C-alpha cells in the first residue's frame, strides 16, 4: 500500500511537476554560464 502511494506520488506528482519546472526554469541552477563573472549568491540584506 505504501509502495503504491509512493509510486503515485513520484510519477503522478513529482515527475510532471519536475519536468514542468525544468522547462520553465532551472530549479537547481545547474546550467553553466561561461560569461558570468561569479556564481556567488549574496546573502547580505541590502
Amino acid at each position, binding site marked *: 500500500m*505504501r509502495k503504491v502511494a509512493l509510486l503515485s506520488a513520484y510519477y503522478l506528482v513529482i515527475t510532471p511537476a519536475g519536468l514542468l519546472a525544468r522547462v520553465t526554469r532551472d*530549479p*537547481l541552477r*545547474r546550467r553553466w554560464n*561561461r560569461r558570468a563573472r561569479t*556564481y*556567488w549568491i549574496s*546573502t*547580505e540584506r541590502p
Partner: protein
Amino acid sequence: MSDLVLGISAYYHDSAAALVADGVPVAAAQEERFTRRRHDSAFPSRAVEYCLREAGADLGDVSAVAYYEDPKLKFRRVVSTFLGAAPRGFASFSATLPEWLSWKLDVATTLRRRLAELDAGPVPRIVIRRHHESHAASAFLPSPYESAAVLCIDGVGEWATTTLWHGRGNRLRQLAELRFPHSLGLLYSAFTYFCGFKVDSGEYKLMGLAPYGRPRYAHLIRERLIDLKPDGSFRLDMRYFEYLRGQVMTGRGFERLFDGPRRLPEGPLTEREFDLAASVQQVTEEVVLALARTARRVTGESRLCLAGGVALNCVANGKVIQEEVFDEVWIQPAAGDAGGALGAALVVASERGAPRAHLGTGRDGMSGSLLGPAYDDEAIGAYLDAEGIPYTRLEPDELARRVAAELARGRIAGWFQGRMEFGPRALGARSILGDPRDTGMQSEMNLKIKFRESFRPFAPSVLASDAKDYFDLKQDSPYMLVVAGVSAAQRIEAADTGGATGLDLLRVQRSTIPAVTHVDSSARVQTVTEHNNPAYHRLLAAFKEETGCPVLVNTSFNVRGEPIVNSPREAYACFMRTNIDLLAMGGFLLDKTAQPEWREENDWREAIPLD
C-alpha cells in the same frame, strides 16, 4: 551556576554532543566513541549523558538545546532534488521520504522524545540553527581572533555547500554562499567513491594517495566537471554525477571520462587511482586558494577561520598558509559535522550574551580539543586490578622517561592520558606512538598495528618550540590540520628514487624522520605545547633528551575501521590484539611481554567492518 547550552548533531554521520558553559566549551564527544560504531549517525544519547556528567548537570540545568541544522530547509532541498531528477530517482525517493515524514522533518519533537528517554530531568527548549551557521560559529567563536574572515566548505547541509562570513567580536555576518548541487566536498567525495573508497570517510585516504600520482586528469576536471571562476565560485556539470538521482556518486559519464569503471573496494590500486587522486587534489587546492583570496579581499581581514569537511583537507590548508593568503589561519579541530554540535551551542550561548572569554589570552577556546572523557588513576587502577593485569606504577616524569627510552629502542607504545580528543584526529590523548627516525616504522605500523593499507602516511607530533627546525611551517598547527614540507635541514639530499613510481616510492628514504615523511617530502604536523597537553609535551621532551629528536609518530589509538578507543578496557583490548609493545595508561605502564595470553572467542577482525 553557569549558563549551559547543549549542542547536538545527528542523523547524517558523526553524531555528537557538546556542552558550553557561559560560552566556553566544557565537554564534547562523538557518539561513535561510546557505541563503538564508526561514524555512528544515531541520536547521541551516550555523548549527551557524558557531557551532562562532565558538568555535574542534568537537563533541567540546561538553558537550551541547539540542533546543528534546519531539517525543514533541508527537506525543501531534498524535494527540489527529486523535482530535478524525476522520473529517475524513485529508489532514493522511496527509501528516504517515509523517514523524512515520520520523524526527520519535525526534528524538535524527535529530539524532545529522545532526550526525555534519557530520564535526565526536564527537557529544555530546542533551538534549530542552520548547518553552515553551526560550522561558521565553530570556526570563529573559539578561534583566538577578535575579528576574521570565515570560510565553511563541505558536502552539503541544507542548501549551502560553501559559505563566506565576517566574524567580529561575538557576531558572525554571512556575506555569500554557493548552493547544492555545486559542492567542492561532493566533488571530492565523487572521486573518493570512484577510486573505491567509502564516501564520508575515505576522503582522507584519497588525499594520502595523491602524492603517489601525477595530476594528468586535472585539465579534464577543469574543462568538463567544474566551471571555476577567478573568485573561487564554481558550478559542477551534473551530467557527470549521479548524486542527484540516487545512492551512488558517479556513473557512466565518469567512466567515459576517466578510463573505465570505478575501482572496486579493496581492489588493486593502479596508476589511474594515484593520478585521479593527484588531479582532484590539485583542483581542490586551486578552488580553496581562490576562495581564500576572495575571503581576504571581501572582508579585508588578515586572519582566516575554517570549518566544514573540506577544512579537514590539511594539504589544501597547508597551501593557504604557504601562499600567505592570510597572516594566520585557525581551523576548527572538529571541522566535520561533529563540530556542528559545538557550533550550534556556541551560537546560542553567544546570543544569550556569553563573552568570548579566551580573547586576549592569545590562545583559542578549545582546550586543545581535549573535551572528552578522562579516566583518573583510581579508575584505571581499579580496572587493571579487577582484571589481574600486570603493570608498573610510575610518577609522570619517570613514565615519560621510560616510554621515551623504549620508543628510542624501536618499540611501539599506546599512549592513553587524560581527556579524549574531540574531532577525528588523535592528538596525544588516545594515540599510538613510534620513533619517526626508524625507516621500517611506517610499514610496521600500517601492517602490524593498524592493519590498514600500506600506502597510508603517518603524521608527526613535534615540540612547538622545535617545529621550525623540522618543518617549513609558518604557524602553529595544534590540531594536525596543516601539511607542511619537511625542512631542508632534515631532508636527505638527492634521495635516489631509482626510477620508482607508485607504492615503490615508499621505500625511498627522504629525511631524518622517514616514518612521517610522505613521498612528496611533506608531513601533516601537530605542534605540541605544554599548555595544550602537558603529559604529551613531557613525553616529547623526554624523547628529545634521549635521542636529540623532538618528533614522534602519532597515529590514532585504534585499528582500521574502529573508532578511537575511549576507555581503559578498549585501550587494553587494542593493545593486546595488535603488535603494540607497551601501554602507558595514566600512571601505569604495561609491557606486552609481561601480559597473560590474550584470548577471544571470536575473530575480532570480522566484527570490525573495513572503513
